[in-house]
């Protein structure tokens, strides 16, 4: 897993904590919240990177978690999309309490591995909230005219558990719902099911790299079917979050 020669990596920003002012709050479905923030002393990000958000209680107690960036680097605001987890300390707060005008401590952009610089033909496979880094990549690809290099497949239980579903579809992403049948353009239906290897094969054709983001179980499932679709495991970059129990 060495970095490809000649690949342009983001600077390893020795970033310190700074202030983000929340400019927009949008609840998306029942479980997601989109925050758009103005970040002081902002450094440009590369699609795929994340910020750390740190909350601070009056007695000095802090909690911090990582959130992928959804916005294009040229967007004047930094956008994150947070899934509210049951009893989630940070996600619950961001979902239920945060309002426009609030200030949050943030640090970033962070990460030099799970990033796409717009030059490598790639397939991104997302489960649920794992789509967020790929939204940044897709927006970047659109703006720079590099869409042919970036394909996306996204999976979720139901459509409202998949943030950015409309935007991804417009981009040409393949969407697989595991608990809902889905009308297809030709009038037929995709029956609720996990991604099939057959569905990934055409998307994997000619790619040099695959990015997989989602829960631990999702990542190992996709790893297997990417293998069946002929993608070498050392071409796969992974970002996973969530519990393994």
């Amino acid at each position: 897993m060495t970095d490809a020669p000649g690949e342009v990596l983001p600077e390893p920003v020795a970033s310190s904590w700074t202030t983000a002012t929340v400019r927009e709050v949008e609840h998306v479905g029942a479980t997601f919240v989109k925050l758009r923030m103005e970040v002081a002393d902002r450094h440009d990000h590369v699609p795929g990177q994340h910020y750390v958000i740190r909350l601070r209680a009056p007695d000095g107690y802090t909690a911090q978690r990582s959130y992928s960036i959804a916005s294009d680097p040229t967007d004047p605001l930094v956008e994150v999309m947070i899934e509210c987890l049951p009893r989630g300390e940070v996600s619950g707060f961001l979902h239920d309490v945060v309002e426009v005008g609030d200030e949050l401590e943030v640090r970033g952009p962070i990460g030099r591995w799970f990033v796409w610089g717009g030059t490598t033909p790639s397939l991104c496979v997302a489960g649920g909230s794992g789509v967020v880094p790929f939204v940044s990549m897709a927006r970047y690809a659109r703006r720079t005219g590099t869409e042919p290099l970036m394909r996306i497949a996204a999976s979720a239980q139901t459509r409202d558990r998949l943030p950015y579903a409309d935007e991804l579809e417009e981009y040409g992403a393949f969407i697989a719902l595991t608990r809902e049948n889905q009308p297809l353009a030709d009038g037929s239906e995709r029956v609720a099911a996990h991604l099939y290897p057959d569905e990934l094969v055409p998307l994997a054709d000619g790619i040099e790299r695959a990015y997989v983001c989602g829960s631990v179980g999702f990542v190992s499932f996709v790893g297997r079917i990417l293998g069946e679709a002929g993608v070498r495991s050392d071409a796969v970059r992974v970002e996973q979050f969530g519990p393994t129990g």
Partner: protein
Amino acid sequence: MAITRGFTGRDRRGGDDRLPPGQYDTGAGWPTLTAELTPQVDVDTWTMTVDGLVDTPTTWDWRGVHALPGSTYFGDIHCVTTWTKFDTTFTGVSVDTLLEITGVKPEATHVFATSTTGYTTNLPLADITDGKAWIVWEFDGKPLTPEHGGPVRLLVPHLYFWKSAKWITRLELRDHDEQGFWERNGYHDRGDPWLEQRYQGDA
């Protein structure tokens, strides 16, 4: 820095002095954070090598490491993604035991750990000697599962857990420091949780 409006925090053990700054207790959970697919490492072909600035470079196979005097770690582990897991039990062999067998040349100052996947991480020699590091294959009395680095991982519990390279296969002793995978990708060179050495540039 200003307090966050409306935030009081949750699940706090009143001033638990076992929790490093910025960490929370993950309870029974054990999250994983991995940069690559989990490999299936076969214990019949797996080997562990200690080489570089040692007197006798040595390679052990699965039976060979199990024949060494065993050692157990009981205590906490800390991940840079802010979870801490209390009271873990890992069993394997102390890195001290491996280094006793190979000998260590006086000019050795650092160690470079490599996994079967090519994952690497760097550590000062002092951070893996004197009872501070292990090669482990059991967690809570059961074989270490592949997603947690099984069959064999490095365990350096006093540093953030990315230093505890999963699927370990080699420790190379060196007279200089060179960044490993996450360190090149922006994480701190040492990673002491008590000093919150998370990213490059932290004190």
